[in-house]
């Protein structure tokens, strides 16, 4: 990914990422609803509760993170109080979180071990850390901004 030269490029990047993420994870939501509709045991059986939980978490986190991208773009669009390097860092963290968090839940749910998620779950804490860093950078950038 090429480093953005301007705040506007950042805005466009996050609008793209946000809307495409929203499309992807809403699609996942439709797939999950379809599995409910067709009573797919792979997803619904009591013994697959871990898978169901993790796929639901993947859908929810993916969707919400897509909205975070859009919110970040909107924040930058409304005003750009943060210096570009710091904004770029926040952007990278948010993009990384948007990939790692939902994908970690998704992979953990595809191949669970009984009540434990599959190994993909290791992506989740990484994504969570990136999200936290990104959000704090944005929040700090707005601190004291009346």
């Amino acid at each position, binding site marked *: 990914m090429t480093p953005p030269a301007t705040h506007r490029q950042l805005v466009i990047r996050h609008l793209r990422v946000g809307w495409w993420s929203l499309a992807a994870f809403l699609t996942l939501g439709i797939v999950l609803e379809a599995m409910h509709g067709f009573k797919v045991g792979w997803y619904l059986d*009591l*013994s*697959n*509760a871990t898978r169901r939980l993790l796929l639901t978490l993947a859908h929810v986190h993916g969707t919400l993170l897509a909205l975070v991208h859009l919110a970040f773009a909107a924040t930058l669009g409304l005003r750009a109080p943060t210096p570009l390097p710091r904004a770029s860092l926040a952007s990278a963290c948010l993009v990384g979180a948007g990939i790692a968090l939902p994908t970690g839940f998704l992979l953990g749910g595809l191949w669970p*071990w*009984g*009540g*434990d998620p599959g190994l993909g779950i290791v992506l989740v804490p990484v994504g969570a850390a990136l999200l936290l860093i990104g959000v704090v950078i944005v929040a700090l950038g707005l601190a004291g901004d009346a």
Partner: protein
Amino acid sequence: MEAVLIAVVLWAALRPLMRVLRPGGRFGVFPEVFALAVLVTWTAVAVRRPPVIEAEVGNRPARVAAGGYVSSDTCADCHPREHGSWHASYHRTMTQVATPATVIPPLDGAPIEIDGARWRLRRRGDDVTVEMPDPAFRGPPRAAPPIERRLVMTTGSHHEQDFWFEDGDDEDGDGDRAVSHLPIVYRIAEKRWLPNGATFMQPPPPADARLGTDRAGWNRNCIQCHATAGRPRFGPEGVRTEVGELGIACEACHGPGAEHVAANRDPRRRYALHLDDERGDPTIVNPRRLSPERASEVCGQCHMVSTITTPAAFPEWNEHGPAFRPGDRLADTRDILGAADRPDLASFVDGRFWSDAVVRVTGREYHGVRGSACAEHGDLSCLSCHDMHQRADDARPPKEWADDQLAPKALGDGACTGCHAAIAADVPAHTRHAAGSPGSACYDCHMPHTTWGLLKAIRSHQIESPSVATTLATGRPNACNLCHLDRSLAWSAERLEAWYGTPMPALGDDDRTHAAAVRWIVAGDAGQRALIAWSMGWGPARAASGPSDAWMVPLLAQALDDPYDAVRFVAARTLAARGDVALGDYDFLAPAAVRATVRDAVVAAEDARARPADDAAAVLQDAAGRLDRAALAALLAARDHRPVVLKE
């Protein structure tokens, strides 16, 4: 506490909103009033429906985890699939708290009348009660005044359901958890109530005796196998029974789980185990990783005739429950009983074995498994055929799997052919029966239906080859004559000699002239009579017993008037299922005169049809195809009247 927290948070959440929305102050103290209303409502609901605290349960055994047991709820968090299949099993529902959801018969208060006594089951809120003859009454139950007690526990949910009512001496108010057996049992398939005594194979009891009950019998006896980690706790202050869990739960087979749970709170440990599937977890017992003998002994702790209540072991067991843990050598902590091993327990052991110590009742199958050559010389264990958790690739509905928890491969010959590959390569050469026919099914010849329980014949788990000599020595029907019901012992012996070189035993005249099954159903002991009455309804036996099996009808009719309740029950069920004749209003508990009338009517109806068998004399027919009454009388005169008690 919970309500206060919710009210405070609600107040805090609404207060800023009210400040914004209250420019004119018209909302006043609304947030405070609303939060207070939530607090009051919540408290009222909590007080009205207090949660059941198991340790404080006073009228039945309490479920209290102790001694390292943690309960199946804890296991479910990490093992949902295994928990799910266990949850579908009849092991789980062996004992349950009686609620409207777990009690199978209707709770409509309709009278249930047996032997002149009356019961009524009712729903009272979340409780189930029974109006019953006062068990403390000294006299026949039909004359006892009615009382109402709470039903507190159920046993079984597959074939029949038994019930336990609160029977504690609770005058001191601190809870006596003695429960007693309701003397009537609900048969699920037949949707009818039976006196408890009629559900076992036992001699006809004296009048009024089959409606007796045994105070605290569950706390003393059933707890050993119908609960997990049961602690009877009989003491001077009363019966303070506790169990780890009602029913047979995870820790009955895997051992106490506390150490396992504590160790696996560490995710690094869990993932290390996930990634190295070959490595077992030493903090818990997995019977599949035990030797075949130790694995089977996990089942054998209940599925054997055994006892832990030796005088020396009793105090420890009474207070702390069974000393056996999965993986242990069973004989270290239990007395494994065979015929005549413990004279002091004769009433418990007698009748449960054939004379050669092969077990004769169901529910005690490990005697058979460990007595089989496949276990003595091979790796046979209970888990060779049974899956305690339904496999992920087993497509059967869970309830179908739960019927006998057989592994998919064990539904056919797969359990045997895995080792006996040479036989599998050319089955007819071994069986002398057509491939795919019942005569070529491993189980039908090597695990015939010679054990009894739950009012039906069940396959023996002592894997053995058909032997007429064994039949003659023990009375145990052999597989040949349990299928070819119209053939004599001599006929079977000749084929076994010709096909397998089995030495011909010494045979009497009757062994040559009469079909063995005919002799057993007429002149055998009650257990033999019941096995044949069941076999006469078994499809493969009906198909193999002549061009027409109509000759069985008058013989089954004789069993409609058998002295034993269980024999009459199974004969009536077989006849009803066959559909040869209408039994009208026949009831196996009807008075003898009524039963005899139906018996004679069935025989007369069959005589009128006159359907001769190939070898009429062998099946007690005259030349015209009617019942040969003289031959029948001669066999009846030779009937084995030894008392037979077959209690699973």
